[in-house]
Each structure stands twice: as structure tokens, then as C-alpha cells.
């Protein structure tokens, strides 16, 4: 038996599926970049939305982020993992059928996202916007991927698991857990759901997910790929295998705790903020372990860096990885966050990671892999070289302009003179100041897109030059590392055991959530004397429109306890302010001012005019017009269902409010529109979305005082 173990098999790898994922990556990449560029231009020149609701910033931005993360990076991850996994394990992928389900399922999810997001179906949780039916599909396809992956592992001939595979394993397990926990929601209709978590709890779960989406979707899988493709492309072993092991284990233990750095100075309890900050700073070390390992692999072979454009892409990617993982911990320090948070500095930071690290890595990986997959030569090395320099210039334009814009605006917003007054009391002053930089950013994005299109052309021509009939190569593979005790039976057990433990873990996690959930609805940190009233039915309807239009992407609802925020927006937000919010609307970026205490600050008519054309009340505003709010009807019919869900989630509505939610809402809408008519608005707006939205905006921060009918 043992001697046979050392024998060889003749197999072929499944490269067809790698080719499919490769092509999907390349195509969706164009979409992600084009959406991003349109969004970028809209910030400098708002009419770029072409007066279409579907591509107005609030709906386009989630489309851009989802396309970039899950379509572009996601397909690239699957292509790279399936290519390297087979070769590292000396085994063909477990099942061609599962591979096909994985591929087409994932493309279908992307298609659903591309349809539902522009239509305004969103949960408003960043990078988890997709509604519940799509969430379920994501879970199922991820499980298909996991089975295909672990069963391939079970059938491996190479016993040793190369470090890259550990990164893949961490990705698969953690993404599954994050996605499930952040997606626990109760459906209201086919395309609407409410998260079971509310207020601060929802915020914490969301940013625990949000941060780890970056960590386990844009970092660990790419590091795993880096450990395969960089040594292969350079034909040199990784600088230190020992370092790779150390940095892998330290990374996976630290990453998951860093999420609260997205919530510094919010009403999240301070100890949790400090915990997140400390773990974020600790992350610097293991992150740089990866960067050093990648870059040092080329030690003594710098000639390759000069000659080989693919190596240039990898070095560029690793350098941006190093920069952004240095900047991340820096931004997580509370005093730095006070300046940088909610500004474009964060946008710059993120794009140095995505355009610099992920984008350049993907281009490098594809330029190396495509000629191998199609058994041909790269069409043009010179073109690849130019692609690199143009993309690099694009990222630098983007990063520098946004960092300068963010710091400029942060300093202006936080500026207080000697008398204790805000130096720039009008928010719009700080916006007009940075509009030139928004144009520079759009130039950077254009350059990157041009570079990317050159890359696509290069790939296209390469594939065109492929031989007509490509036969699957038969590979002779050897069993390596297996000792005598591994009979077939034992090996089967080992692989199955692994898969089973993962499945069992997921089952336990889901089970515990269901089990623990009832005890979670009591909110220990609430001050009973400061509790707030929940929103009225019309306000909830307006809140749905606020979410659907993506208002939270430019307006926060969280006033920090720092002097400038308090002077500008009012007293700091408390946990009680958002205690009934499913989902929370704290936001993460202030392209416009914070809205926590907007209610009653302006008359109803001001809001009416502001939504039709913001520039009539705020000259130079960059907010788009929302004329469709005057023509689209509010959905009153689903309010009863929504209220019964809210009541079940613990929001204190009485039976009457739930049973008559739509009637109560329409009554308030009639009153509000009558009052607007008396101020000069046109008649017949009762049922229009604008009325519900104004009701919601006027209720923001007003819930401690108002006693609305139907609310205890």
C-alpha cells in the first residue's frame, strides 16, 4: 500500500472554470470602475446623474461598491483560488457541477444586485445592502464554494498545506459567519426586510461585518493569492515561509476585533471603542508581515522589477497594501479619527487599498495567468507596462486629492476661533472648498479606467491569439508527504472531518443566534429616564424612502461629543436617540451635514423646496434634485406588516397603531400636505413620497418631546 502511495496519477486540472471566473472578473471590473467614475463626477458636478433616479449618487454608490467588492474582486478571488488550489494540492477540483453552480450562481447574484440596487431596494448596511432573498442566495452559493473547496482538500495528493491555503480557509469560514450574523433580518415584503438588531447593536454588528468584509474579502484571500502568484511570477521562493506562518496566525486572531474603530466618538460605549482602537493598532504588525514578505521575495532580483510589468503590478499592489495598512491603524487612533472620520480622507484610504492593492494585484495576476490558461503568450508586454504607469498615476491622483480634501474639510469643520465660535459655520463653505479636488479625483479615476481598458484589450488580444483547440493537459502528479498510516479510510475521515467541523460550527453559530436572540432585546445600556418615542407610521414610511434613496451615504445621524460637532449640530447623540432604529442610520460619511437633530430646524416648506432643488435654499449645494419624490406614491399598504415586524422586534407600538398603521399615516400625510399647501406648495401631494420624507426629516432628534398618537 505504502509503495503505491508514492506512485503517481495522471490527471487534468479544471481550468475551464478558472477561465470563466477570469472573464467575469474582467467584465465586471469595467462596470465597477465606470459606476465609480460616474459617482465621482456627480460629487463634482451633480447634474451628472442625468436626472435619473436609478443612477443618482445614493443608489449608484452601493452599486459601485458591490460591483467592486463582490463582482470584480469576488470573481478574481474565485479564479485565483481555483487556479492555485488545484496546483498546490495536486488534485482536480472536487466537482465540475459544483464549480458550475458556484460560477453561474454568483453571476446571478451579481445580476440581481445590478437590478435591485438602482431600483432602491437596499437594507442600507454598507457592503451588505442586498435584500434578504439575495442574502439567502449568497449563503447557498458560499456553501457550494466551501464544499467544493474542502472536498478538493480532502482529495489532495500533496499532504502539506501551503500557507496560501490557510488564508483561503480563513476567508471561507469567516465570511460565512460574518454574512450570516449581519444578515439576520425579518422580511416585510419580497424586497424589504428589517434587521433584528436595532440602534447601537445594529451599528456594532454592521461595522464588525463592514470592517471584516475588508479584512476577509479584500485582504486575506488576496494575501493567500499573493503567496502563490508572486513567487510563481518571480520564480523565486517566498522570502520567509516562517514569517508567512507567523503573520497568518497573528492576523486571523487580531482582525476580527478591530471593527469598532468605525464607531469612534459615537454613542457606542467607550470601552468598546478603545478595544477596537487597540486591536486596530496591533494589526499594523501582522499586516506589514505580509507586505515585507512579498516585497522581500524580490530581494536580489530587482532586475525583474525593471523588466517585467507583471512584477511591477505586484510590487505596486504590495506597496499600496503596506501604505493602507499603515494608514488604517493611524486613522483608528481616536484623535486622528476626530479629524478624518466622515471626510474624504477615508475615501482616499479605501481606494488606495482597492485600486492600489486589489486592482493592481488582480491585473498582475490575470496578466500572468491568462497566457497560461489559454496556452499562449501575452499579447503585449509594452502595453502592460503602460497600463501599470497609467493606473499608478490614476491611483496617486485619487489618493492624494482625497487625502488633501479630507484633511482640508476636517480642519475647516473642526475649526473653532478664540471666541469659541465655529470658523466655518456654513457646511457648504467646506464643500465648495474641496470641489476642485473632486475634479482631480475624477481625473484620477479616469486615468485608472483608461489603464484598466488597456489591460482588458491586452487580455482580449492574448485570448484571441490562443490556439483553436486547447486540449486539457494531462499532468503527472505524485503523492507527497503521506505516511504509512494513511490508508484510504483514514484520509477520507480527515477530509470529511474538516468539512463536518466547518458545517457543525456554522450550524452551532446559527443555532446560538436564534437561541440567544430573545435575551438580546433588553437593552442594558439604555437610560430609562431618557428613552425616546418611536417614529409614527408616516415617519417610518419616510424613513423607508430615506433609506431607499441612500441618504445615509452622504448624511450621518450621529453627533460626536467633540466641540465642533456639538457647536454645529447640537448635543451629542445618545444610545437612546437611535434605540428603535431598525436599521440604524448613523452613516459613515458627511458629504452633507449631520441630520441627527435636523427636525424643526427649518420649516416644512424649506424641505419641500430643498428636495426639488437644493440650490434654491442652499446656494452652491452639490446635492442632486429629487423631483421624482413629487410623482412617486408612498407605499402605505405595507406599513401594517412593517409595524407588526417592528413591534415583534420590541419597538413599543400598541395594537391600534399596528392594525391601523396605513390609516394613521395617511391622516398625518393629509395634515402635513394641507399645511404645505397653505405655505404655497401645490395640492394633491398627500400620497406622494415627499410628504412622508418631510415628516421623517422633521422628526429627527425630536422624539424626546413629541407625543404622537398611538404611541405609549
Amino acid at each position: 500500500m505504502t509503495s503505491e502511495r508514492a506512485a503517481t496519477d495522471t490527471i487534468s486540472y479544471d481550468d475551464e472554470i478558472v477561465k470563466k471566473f477570469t472573464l467575469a472578473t474582467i467584465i465586471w471590473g469595467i462596470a465597477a470602475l465606470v459606476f465609480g467614475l460616474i459617482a465621482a463626477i456627480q460629487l463634482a458636478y451633480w447634474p451628472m446623474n442625468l436626472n435619473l433616479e436609478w443612477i443618482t449618487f445614493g443608489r449608484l454608490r452601493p452599486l459601485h461598491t458591490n460591483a467592486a467588492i463582490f463582482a470584480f474582486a469576488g470573481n478574481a478571488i474565485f479564479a485565483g483560488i481555483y487556479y492555485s488550489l488545484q496546483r498546490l494540492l495536486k488534485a482536480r477540483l472536487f466537482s465540475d457541477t459544483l464549480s458550475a453552480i458556484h460560477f453561474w450562481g454568483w453571476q446571478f447574484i451579481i445580476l440581481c444586485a445590478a437590478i435591485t440596487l438602482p431600483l432602491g431596494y437596499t437594507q442600507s448596511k454598507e457592503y451588505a445592502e442586498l435584500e434578504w432573498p439575495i442574502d439567502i442566495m449568497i449563503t447557498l452559493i458560499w456553501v457550494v464554494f466551501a464544499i467544493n473547496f474542502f472536498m478538493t482538500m480532502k482529495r489532495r495528493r500533496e499532504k502539506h498545506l501551503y500557507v496560501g491555503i490557510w488564508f483561503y480557509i480563513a476567508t471561507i469560514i469567516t465570511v460565512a459567519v460574518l454574512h450570516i450574523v449581519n444578515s439576520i433580518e425579518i422580511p416585510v415584503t419580497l424586497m424589504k426586510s428589517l434587521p433584528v438588531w436595532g440602534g447601537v447593536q445594529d451599528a456594532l454588528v454592521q461595522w464588525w461585518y463592514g470592517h471584516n468584509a475588508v479584512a476577509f474579502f479584500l485582504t486575506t484571500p488576496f494575501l493567500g493569492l499573493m503567496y502563490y502568484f508572486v513567487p510563481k511570477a518571480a520564480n523565486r521562493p517566498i522570502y520567509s515561509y516562517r514569517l508567512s506562518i507567523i503573520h497568518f496566525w497573528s492576523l486571523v486572531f487580531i482582525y476580527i476585533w478591530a471593527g469598532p474603530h468605525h464607531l469612534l466618538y459615537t454613542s457606542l460605549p467607550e470601552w468598546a471603542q478603545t478595544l477596537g482602537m487597540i486591536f486596530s493598532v496591533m494589526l499594523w504588525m501582522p499586516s506589514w508581515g505580509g507586505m515585507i514578505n512579498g516585497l522581500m521575495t524580490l530581494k536580489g532580483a530587482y532586475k525583474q522589477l525593471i523588466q517585467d510589468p507583471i512584477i511591477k503590478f505586484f510590487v505596486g499592489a504590495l506597496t499600496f497594501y503596506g501604505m493602507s495598512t499603515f494608514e488604517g491603524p493611524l486613522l483608528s487612533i481616536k484623535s486622528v479619527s476626530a479629524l478624518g472620520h466622515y471626510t474624504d480622507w477615508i475615501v482616499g484610504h479605501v481606494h488606495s487599498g482597492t485600486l492600489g492593492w486589489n486592482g493592481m494585484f488582480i491585473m498582475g495576476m490575470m496578466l500572468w495567468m491568462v497566457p497560461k490558461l489559454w496556452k499562449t503568450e501575452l499579447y503585449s508586454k509594452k502595453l502592460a507596462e503602460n497600463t501599470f504607469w497609467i493606473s499608478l498615476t490614476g491611483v496617486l491622483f485619487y489618493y492624494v486629492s482625497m487625502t488633501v480634501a479630507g484633511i482640508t474639510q476636517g480642519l475647516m469643520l473642526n475649526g473653532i476661533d478664540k471666541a469659541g465660535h465655529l470658523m466655518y459655520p456654513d457646511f457648504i463653505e467646506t464643500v465648495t472648498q474641496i470641489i476642485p479636488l473632486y475634479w482631480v479625483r475624477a481625473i484620477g479615476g479616469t486615468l485608472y479606467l483608461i489603464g484598466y481598458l488597456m489591460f482588458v484589450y491586452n487580455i482580449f488580444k492574448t485570448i484571441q491569439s490562443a490556439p483553436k483547440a486547447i486540449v486539457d493537459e494531462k499532468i503527472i502528479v505524485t503523492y507527497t508527504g503521506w505516511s504509512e498510516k494513511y490508508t484510504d479510510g483514514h484520509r477520507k475521515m480527515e477530509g470529511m472531518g474538516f468539512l463536518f467541523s466547518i458545517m457543525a460550527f456554522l450550524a452551532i453559530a446559527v443555532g446560538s443566534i436564534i437561541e440567544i436572540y430573545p435575551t438580546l432585546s433588553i437593552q442594558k445600556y439604555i437610560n430609562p429616564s431618557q428613552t425616546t418615542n418611536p417614529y409614527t407610521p408616516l415617519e417610518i414610511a419616510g424613513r423607508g424612502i430615506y433609506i431607499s434613496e441612500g441618504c445615509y451615504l452622504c448624511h450621518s445621524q450621529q453627533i460626536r461629543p467633540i466641540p465642533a460637532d456639538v457647536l454645529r449640530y447640537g448635543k451629542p447623540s445618545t444610545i437612546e436617540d437611535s434605540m428603535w432604529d431598525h436599521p440604524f442610520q448613523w452613516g459613515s460619511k458627511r458629504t452633507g451635514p449631520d441630520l441627527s437633530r435636523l427636525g424643526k430646524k427649518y420649516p416644512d416648506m424649506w424641505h419641500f423646496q430643498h428636495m426639488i432643488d437644493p440650490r434654491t435654499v442652499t446656494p452652491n449645494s452639490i446635492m442632486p434634485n429629487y423631483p421624482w419624490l413629487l410623482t412617486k406614491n408612498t407605499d402605505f399598504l405595507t406599513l401594517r406588516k412593517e409595524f407588526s415586524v417592528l413591534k415583534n422586534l420590541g419597538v413599543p407600538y400598541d395594537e391600534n397603531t399596528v392594525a391601523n398603521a396605513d390609516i394613521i399615516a395617511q391622516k398625518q400625510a393629509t395634515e402635513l400636505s394641507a399645511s404645505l399647501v397653505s405655505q404655497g406648495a401645490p395640492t394633491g401631494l398627500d400620497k406622494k413620497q415627499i410628504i412622508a420624507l418631510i415628516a421623517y426629516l422633521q422628526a429627527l432628534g425630536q422624539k424626546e418631546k413629541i407625543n404622537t398618537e398611538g404611541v405609549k
Partner: protein
Amino acid sequence: MNILFLMIPIALLLGFIFVLGFIWAVNDGQMDDLETPAIRILNDDLIDKKLHRKEFK
């Protein structure tokens, strides 16, 4: 904030899974050799040029 009663156990459970993975890796000898794995991946697969469907015995 009672959400922490869920999130901390999940984070610890994840950490625990990784500890188990680590222990398994050490016991399995995955980390005994920290030199050759880095070199081994550089070897290209041996392409079987003459025998396409014949089994090796």
C-alpha cells in the same frame, strides 16, 4: 449592547476554531519544515505528453 453576549462568543468561537486548526497543523507536522514548501510550489507540473488516457499502475 447585549449584542456583545452574542458577538464576543462568536469572536471567541472563531478564535477557538483557529486555535484548533493551529494545533492540528502543528501535530500534523504542517510546520515541521519551513524551507522546502516555499521552493516546492515553484516546480512546474509534469505534463504527460505521450500517455493521455493510460492509467499509471
